Each structure stands twice: as C-alpha cells, then as structure tokens.
C-alpha cells in the first residue's frame, strides 16, 4: 500500500522510514540474548534467528517449556516473533517466515509440509516470482514436480539448491553467531519521557537482553551503565554497581528501580542504552535436590575484603577477653576470630566506655542526669602496679533515674571522685 493511500485511511498514522542498520542491530541483540539457550545460533538476515536446540531441549524442560520461555522473554524485550522448527535450518526458517507455527521432528515429514509453502519463501527476485506465477507455480510442491533440468535452465540452480537444502538432501553449513566481548544495546523511546520511573519499563527490555547475553557468556557483571539520551543535551549516565557479579535480570531491575525512584531527570529522554563491560566468569550452580529457600550463603572473606577496602583495615576487628583484673584491659579490640580465653568475672556491662567519664557528686551522691542509686557493690579492683597504669577502684552497679543500669566506680587515687565506666545495655 502506498503511503498516501495509507494516510488517507488513517490520517494519524506515523510514517517512519525503514532503518536497515537498526534492524541489523536488533537482530544481533536478539541473537546475543538467544545464545543462552544454545551455542548454535545463526542469523538469517534481515529478520531471522536460527537456534540449534536439539541439544538444549532436556536442559530447558522440553520444547514446550523452551518455547514458552523464548516467547515470554521476546515479549519482555518488546519483540513479536513467529516460531517454527524443523530438522533443517532452511525448512525451519521458511515455516516461520510463512507464519506456520509448526514443529517437525522427522525428516520424512518434511516433504509434504514444505510442498504446501508458497514459492515466496524462496525470497528470490521479483521477476523470478512473476515467472513462477506465469507458469502457474504457486507452491514449493508444484515447483518440485517440474522437471529439474528445465527449472535449472530457466531459473538457475538457486531455487533447486535451496529446496534440496531445506529437504536435507544437500548440506547447509552455517556460521554460528559469535558473541561480542562487551554488551551494548539501545532503544529509541516512542515518545519523550520526563518521569524517571517511566524509564524502567523500557530499560527492562534491555535488561532481559543483557541477562541473556551474560548467561550465554557464563558470566556476570559488577557494573552496568544506563545512558539516557536527551534531545539537545549531553547524555545522562546512571551507573549501577553491584557487590558481587550477577546476571540476574530481576536483581538488575530491582537496583535500577531503586535508583530511578529518587532520580530527577535533567531533561526529557529520547532514547536509552544499556552498556556493560568487563564480563567476569560466573558459573551456574547445580540445583539442589530439594527446593531451597532464600539466597545462597555468601563468602565471609569477600565481605571482610569489601568492608576493609572502603573503611580501612582497622575498621573491621574482633574483641577478646584477657586474664586481667583492670576492666579496660580485660576486654580489648583484637583481630577478629582470635583465640578466646574463658574467664569468669563478676557482673560486667555490655558496653565499656572508651574512657571513664567523671560524674558529678551532688550531696555526696554520684549523679548522672539525677542521683544514682547503687544496686550492687562495691567490687574492689586494685591491680596493675607492675606497668605504672595501676588502678584502685570500687565498682558499683547503679541505677539511673530513668531505670538505666550503669557501671560506675569510685576512684581511690589522686583526686578521687566518681566515674562512669560502662552501661548494662
């Protein structure tokens, strides 16, 4: 139909010129995603992707369940697709192209099915098709019933060779698609978007593609970048960093949703693209015999490494008890995982103050936000003469006016006085 005629029928029709580059890009994107289902992916330009699936059926739970997943994810990526299957790639593509959703398992069943396909599936030149029409050949079956020599003489070897390949009489070797090292995909938005959250829907299409790509590479990424293209401004980049490499589309979507939920766009967005480099190996895991709940336990060492990398080595430590009477020496910072002594002290608080805090003494009663009530004590601690840091104190458990329990002492040296040393949290 001519554009003018179409516009006459539907005045609000939006006409876009065909963009072969974008079509190729899209096809490569689909091929990259499809490589997670089989290593044998071949392209049939400009609109076909062939998957060699006989080796994958068991892993993906049979043909029906594989097809279900292919369909669902293609829809999530925003594509509509026709599916067909056959023992030869040519026949499968023809069936799909002709819109016959057929899956043929045996070579013997191929001939009658192919015979019904229109000759257009051969995708030969228009004049060849016109010539077929002129001699009354409409289907492949009719073409095949003609004498081979005559057909070869009139139309060349091409159509016959194609037919033989489809029937499996001639070999049909394919170059398998090779995945690129980095992932990059873009989509133009049908209308300019001004709300950051509205981008998630479109970004989801790219994320599904990314997850497929990563599954095909048996890898994961620790960082991906969503680029927002504006009309007349530099693109905005939203980088999402992950703690551990992942290829989980749901996880990616979740992180992106979190980020977009409080993101203000600098301007309307016309197109978005998703980029991810540095694919690191991320082997799949065997499924457990029983269904396990929750996420798998992580590596403790990795956590410590990450915390230390950002907060400093000293920031991650353990605590240890020492055979010491002086309270500040009895519980100390130590390497985490250090060997521990079993010691039995009296009643001790969970929190020890870094340095004892002097308390006011009001009316001869120690006071901390009001007078303290002594509950237990005194516990005399007098020790440490050998290192010059000796103490002589009477410790008490005391109750504050607000019922908090604290550990205080009365100093016997120097100026004396009351000090707060711990909190019974």
């Amino acid at each position: 139909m001519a554009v003018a005629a179409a516009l006459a029928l539907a005045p609000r029709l939006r006409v876009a010129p065909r963009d072969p580059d974008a079509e190729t890009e899209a096809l490569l994107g689909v091929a990259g995603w499809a490589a997670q289902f089989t290593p044998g992916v071949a392209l049939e330009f400009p609109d076909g992707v062939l998957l060699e699936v006989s080796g994958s059926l068991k892993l993906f739970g049979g043909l029906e369940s594989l097809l279900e997943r292919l369909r669902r994810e293609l829809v999530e990526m925003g594509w509509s697709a026709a599916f067909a299957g056959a023992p030869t790639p040519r026949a499968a593509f023809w069936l799909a192209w002709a819109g016959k959703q057929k899956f043929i398992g045996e070579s013997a069943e191929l001939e009658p099915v192919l015979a019904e396909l229109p000759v257009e599936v051969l995708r030969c030149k228009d004049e060849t098709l016109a010539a077929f029409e002129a001699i009354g050949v409409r289907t492949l079956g009719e073409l095949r019933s003609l004498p081979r020599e005559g057909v070869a003489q009139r139309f060349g070897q091409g159509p016959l060779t194609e037919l033989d390949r489809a029937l499996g009489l001639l070999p049909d070797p394919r170059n398998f698609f090779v995945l690129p090292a980095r992932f990059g995909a873009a989509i133009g938005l049908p209308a300019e978007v001004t709300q950051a959250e509205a981008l998630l829907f479109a970004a989801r299409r790219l994320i599904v593609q990314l997850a497929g790509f990563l599954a095909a590479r048996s890898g994961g990424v620790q960082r991906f970048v969503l680029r927002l293209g504006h009309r007349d401004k530099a693109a905005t980049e939203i980088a999402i960093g992950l703690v551990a490499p992942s290829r989980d589309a749901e996880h990616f979507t979740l992180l992106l949703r979190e980020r977009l939920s409080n993101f203000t766009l600098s301007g309307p967005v016309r197109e978005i693209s998703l980029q991810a480099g540095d694919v690191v190996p991320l082997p799949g895991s065997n499924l457990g015999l029983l269904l396990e709940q929750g996420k798998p336990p992580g590596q403790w060492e990795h956590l410590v490494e990450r915390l230390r990398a950002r907060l400093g080595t000293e920031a991650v430590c353990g605590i240890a008890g020492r055979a010491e009477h002086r309270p500040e020496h009895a519980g100390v910072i130590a390497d985490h995982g250090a060997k521990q002594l079993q010691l039995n002290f009296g009643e001790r608080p969970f929190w020890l103050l870094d340095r004892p805090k002097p308390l006011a003494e009001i009316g001869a009663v120690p006071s901390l936000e009001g007078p303290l009530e002594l509950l237990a004590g005194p516990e005399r601690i007098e020790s440490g003469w050998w290192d010059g840091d000796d103490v002589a104190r009477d410790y008490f458990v005391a109750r504050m006016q607000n019922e908090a329990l604290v550990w205080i002492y009365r100093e016997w040296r120097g100026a004396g006085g009351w000090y707060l040393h711990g909190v019974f949290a």
Partner: protein
Amino acid sequence: MAGMLFSFAALLDRPDIWRGDSLNRVGTPTVACGFPELDAELPGGGWPAGALTEILPAHEGIGELRLLGPALAGLSKRGLRLVWIAPPHLPYAPALAAAGIELANLVVVRAASPKETLWATEQALVSNACGAVLAWPQGAKYAELRRLQIAAEGGRAPAFLFRVPEAAGESSPAALRIALGTSDGGLAVHVLKRRGAPLAQPILLPAMPPAVRSKSHHVDRPPAAPAAARDFSARLVHA
C-alpha cells in the same frame, strides 16, 4: 445453631484460610529470641531472618542488648558470625562471653560516618555471610531503610537496627519494630509493628541483668539504704 457454629469453627481451622487477626506462622524463617513470652507474640516465633528488626530503646542501658543475648549466643555457638556495625561503645568482651556469645565469631565494624554505617550494613546483609547483623545507624531515611530491607530479603540473618525512640513516629519498611521501655525494673517490650495483627499490650520481661538483683544481698550496704547512710560509710572507708 450449635451445628452451624461448629461448622464455622471447622472452616476457620482450614490451613488455606487466612484470618486477618492471626499471625503469619509459616513461610518466614526466624531465630528464636529465647524469651517464651516474646517468642509467642512474634510472627514465626522469633526474630525474623532476612528482614529488618528495629529496636527503639527509650534510652541506653535498659537492657536493649540483653534482649538479643540468647539469640546471639545461639547463633554464635553454631559458628555464625555476628557483625556489629558502628556500635556506640566498645562491646565488652567479659560481659559478652558471660552471656554465652562466642567472641571469636563477633566482629565489630567501625564506620566514620552515618553514610558508611548504612553502606557497611547493606554490604553485610547482601553478602548473606553473617549470622546476625546489628547496626546503629544515625538518622536513617525511609529510602535508606528500604534499601537495607531489600538487601536483607532472602538472607538467613536477622538484622537489628538500633534507633532513637523518636523514630517510632516515622514510617519504616522494617518487618518488626520494637520499642523498649522500663516497667517496675523489668523490660517492657512494645511491638509497634509486626507481620500480622498489631499488638496493643506491651510484653513484660524480667529485669535485666537478673544477676544484679539476686546478688544484691552480697552488697555490704542494702541497695535501698538512704543516700546519706551510704555516703557516711563510703567516707569512713575513704578515710
């Protein structure tokens, strides 16, 4: 009439009928908190694993850590690590050991800023390598808490956030929110939010630490002695 009542009761007993006033007893893994009165009121019978629990003590020193003691002791004895992020003071080893906590499995993370505290907490939760995560964030916003809640989901660790009592007025994505107060020397646990029906009455737990009270007869002065008398004897010793 009686027959009808009976059939209605039988209907309500069906496991596939969910009642709004019943607690969600299945699905969420929990860690028993060691206080039967409290376990009975917590969905799943304990601290929720893979979810945030907010603890809002009225003020420091009323037993907010003792409340976690039995659960932490159990986890650490199973070889699981307890990560304390930005605690307000030094966790005191002798007291923790006395509470049954394996100190070798206790790790303290010191953060320089509130932002780092949140970051470290998120890392600890996401890694799913910890047995329990305790954090003392300062002034966390809703969006930040939501991030933590998402990080905790699916994990095995209960995550305890200690926050100021004023935070009770803010909304929070935490699965469990508990305000702590005192009542007659004991600990009054107000469940502000839980999965399931709200709880109107506070749960009263015995005074903590109990040893202080039971030991009080060893004190050379009765604890209730007037301040002046105490002061007198103290001065005598001092002189």
